[in-house]
């Protein structure tokens, strides 16, 4: 049976939220943030999850093992702003049971 996992998300105002994310809905991290409305619509996931904008950029705050970056994500992060060593695009991280306990912080909105 698929179980929900725990994720800790710090929003752009600095507020921290503990959320449950389903592993059986083919969701990604960006969609989890949107489903809990932790960032206003229109400020996250603008391209719909194609790694073509960086509106779902987040910083990984736990040592959770994540899937490797693919070319698209790497290239988009090379053009994004506020990028740090622990930056990832939420839309490129599928929710799996391996992610239980993940802690992330949303990157600031681009000007």
């Amino acid at each position, binding site marked *: 049976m698929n179980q929900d996992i725990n994720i800790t998300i710090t929003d752009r105002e600095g507020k921290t939220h503990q959320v449950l994310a389903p592993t059986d809905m083919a969701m990604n991290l960006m969609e989890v943030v949107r489903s809990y409305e932790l960032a*206003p619509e*229109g*400020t996250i996931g*603008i391209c719909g999850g194609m790694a*073509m904008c960086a509106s779902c950029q987040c910083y990984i705050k736990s040592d959770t093992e994540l899937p490797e970056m693919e070319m698209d994500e*790497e290239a988009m992060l*090379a*053009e994004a702003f506020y990028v740090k060593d622990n930056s990832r695009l939420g839309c490129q991280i599928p929710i799996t049971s391996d992610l239980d306990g993940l802690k992330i912080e949303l990157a600031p909105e681009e000007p």
Partner: protein
Amino acid sequence: MIKTDILIIGAGPTGLFTVFEAGLLKLKCHLIDALPQPGGQLTELYPKKPIYDIPAFPEVLAGDLVDNLMEQIKPFEPGFTLGERAEDIEKLDDGSFIVTTDQGTKHHTKVVAIAGGLGSFEPRKPPIPRLSDFENKGVSYMVKNPEDYRDKDVVIAGGGDSALDWSIFLADVASSVTLIHRRNEFRGALESVDRVKELKDMGKIKLITPAEVVDVNGNGHIENVLIRKNNNPEEDFKLETDYFIPLFGLSPKLGPIANWGLEIEKNAIKVDNSLDYQTNIPGIYAIGDVNTYPGKLKLILCGFHEATLMCQSAYQRIHPDKKYVMKYTTVGGVTGFDGSRKQAPKAVVRSID
């Protein structure tokens, strides 16, 4: 002054299909789009990506969908104002509107249909302090007239196609071109990457990677940029330049439409979805991704539906005294404004002796 029945703001799939539905009702359409070509995000962001949820198309490339829509609406001779952004709206006493673009083009229309998608595509501006102080004073986010840069020192930042292509082009125009990118790898057409390497080897482009511009300085006009190499502040150095062109692609912004007095919720325009997708201002409709209502889904197929209902309402607004019944195209055919006529072939009835 451009005159039309329905002025559509946004030439994405929803805006384009509106031309067809309006055309069936003999209403003329004109479209404004900030991008230089029709198609909206489909053409600008992902022309080669397949879409799987267009009814009756098991799979269609975004670019092909736009080509098909352009073909479908051709008989209705839509007008286009491309590469301009709708800026101001004025409601006249007779209920019609004048919409003016950022370049001053005026459109007089009976009805406005905002099909603006995510907004108009605007250059992404890097968060460099005081960068905005130097806009048009040596800093610009696009190359409008390459001649402006003749025999000048130019710094370009970015790693995509536009940064590569303009570096190549300006290498022959400017007295020096410096290309700065955060990584050693570029994301662009292979030929462009190769050409930049050639020009670098020939000494015509100076390449600084991995690096980024972290500050700009000048007195009135830009004089130098501060470059940080390897993410290490200790390696910061100044580079004298006449121009700085950050090219980081485009991102959509709702823009001036947000100031038209329309009710906005969640970065989208609130409409009446129980009736006709009209906004709080009578005569202004909002359809497709740009609108919101309970249960809204940002899907192309939903935009098509919204456009169809909206056109019926627009017809009644433009012709309050006329009676109208919806006709199937299978029955009524399609009569274009260009004189073309498409019709189902008549079945021949013949007796069997």
